[in-house]
């Protein structure tokens, strides 16, 4: 199987704190890969280093066969990104931000159709500041799909969404997967991970604890469901018990 992403020995520190420690990772083409871990485990830093937004201290990244820093312009024709915290000009309208985003790509998707799929049709004239948190979140995911990407990065894709909206987003991502889209996502919701991810990787203090399919990971743990297995792997089990 061909690789869409190859990360070797990625290391990144902020001062004395090692946010990502020698991360090795491979994502196959057409796969949905989940990067899990509690807050501060290094998920976002990993993604930002992979994308070239943050400079890596050590290590190499090959995304769709390209170097994210040197081949930035070419690479991001085919890569969509939804950052965890995205903010917009307060007074920009939904239609305007979609039009601008569309203009950046050679073969963009039809954003009006995307608005429909994400339950945002009729909101074209609203300014971003008038959208609810959930609507803004859906807009962020939608904008990541405008490039008609081969690879999309979704950092906490459904945070703040209600269950109906979450299911709609899942369905849409799955439909794109059948068209060959590769996805790297982060999430704190295990039901989401179980539904979407082919393989997952759990990070703890910037290091890989375990990697494999959901089934494999659950089987290797003393538990029979991903929720508990995840807490066990990420070392939050004790913390969870204590708080009870």
């Amino acid at each position, binding site marked *: 199987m061909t690789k869409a992403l190859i990360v070797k020995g990625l290391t990144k520190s902020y001062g004395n704190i090692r946010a990502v420690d020698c991360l090795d990772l491979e994502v196959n083409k057409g796969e949905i890969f989940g990067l899990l871990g509690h807050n501060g485990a290094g998920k976002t830093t990993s993604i930002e280093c992979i*994308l070239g*937004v943050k400079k890596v201290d050590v290590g190499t990244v090959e995304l769709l066969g390209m170097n994210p820093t040197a081949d*930035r*312009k*070419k690479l*991001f*024709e085919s*890569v969509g*990104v939804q*950052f965890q*915290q*995205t*903010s*917009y*000009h307060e*007074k*920009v309208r939904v239609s*305007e931000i979609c*039009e*601008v*985003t*569309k*203009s*950046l*790509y050679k073969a963009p998707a039809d954003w009006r159709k995307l608005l429909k799929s994400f339950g945002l049709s009729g909101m074209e004239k609203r300014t971003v500041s008038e959208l609810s948190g959930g609507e803004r979140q859906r807009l962020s995911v939608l*904008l990541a799909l405008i*490039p008609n990407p081969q690879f999309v990065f979704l950092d906490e894709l459904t945070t703040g969404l209600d269950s109906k909206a979450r299911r709609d987003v899942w369905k849409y991502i799955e439909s794109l997967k059948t068209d060959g889209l590769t996805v790297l996502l982060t999430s704190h919701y295990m039901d989401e991970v179980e539904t979407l991810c082919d393989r997952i990787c759990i990070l703890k203090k910037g290091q890989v604890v375990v990697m494999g399919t959901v089934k494999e990971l659950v089987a290797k743990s003393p538990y029979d469901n991903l929720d508990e297995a995840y807490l066990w792997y990420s070392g939050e089990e004790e913390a969870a018990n204590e708080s009870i």
Partner: protein
Amino acid sequence: MKAFNAIFKNEFKLSLRDMNIPIFGIVQPIIVAIIIGLTGGSKPAFEGAGYSFIDQSFGALTAICICATGLMGMPLLLSDYRHRKILKRYMVTPVSPALLLFVQVLVNLIMSIISLISIYIICSVCWGYSMDGNVGLFLLSYLFVTLSIYSIGMMLASLAPNMKTASLLCTLIYFPMLFFSGATIPYEIMPKAARAAMDILPLTQGVKLLKATSLGLPAENAVIPIIILALVSVVCVILSIKFFRWE
């Protein structure tokens, strides 16, 4: 080209929606023009002068918008875009940073030109202003002054680590340049010692150049301002590119 058109259209609309640039860049210089016109107007600039007070002030008035857009509007907008992670979002698209910066320069330049035209109309209708100097040369020097003041703004945007520092730097540079460059308070009415201090400000040199070309003064009046502004532009452009950050 498609990206440029879309981003330009959007940024231009947003700058009108924001109203900061139209107020400080267009309305403010119009008000100053009216005050200057009402105080001196069509009287001779000084005893025996071949030109009127408004003739003398025209070049200075046109510099107000350059100052407002270049030293407040543009750097604050860019650091706001960085603060809000708007630039970071652009970083993971194929767009080049040069295009984004160029769009901002163009939007602000257009605002300055609108301001220039409005001032011209007001001065000519109310106080019979007409340009003694060569219009082409004046426009050329206007463009030159604009770009060199904008390069200072770009440098501020690149150097300021956050929004707070950016506003502080802009305030520290904008207000002295606005009041002590001769753009609002005429250079000629300042005491001699103050003028020497004012000469340090790049915009003072810009105002001198604009006055020289609008009044059609001999070329030697323009040499020093041109050299100083060119140096400022080169240094600021280099620094702003070197220190440009998406995030």
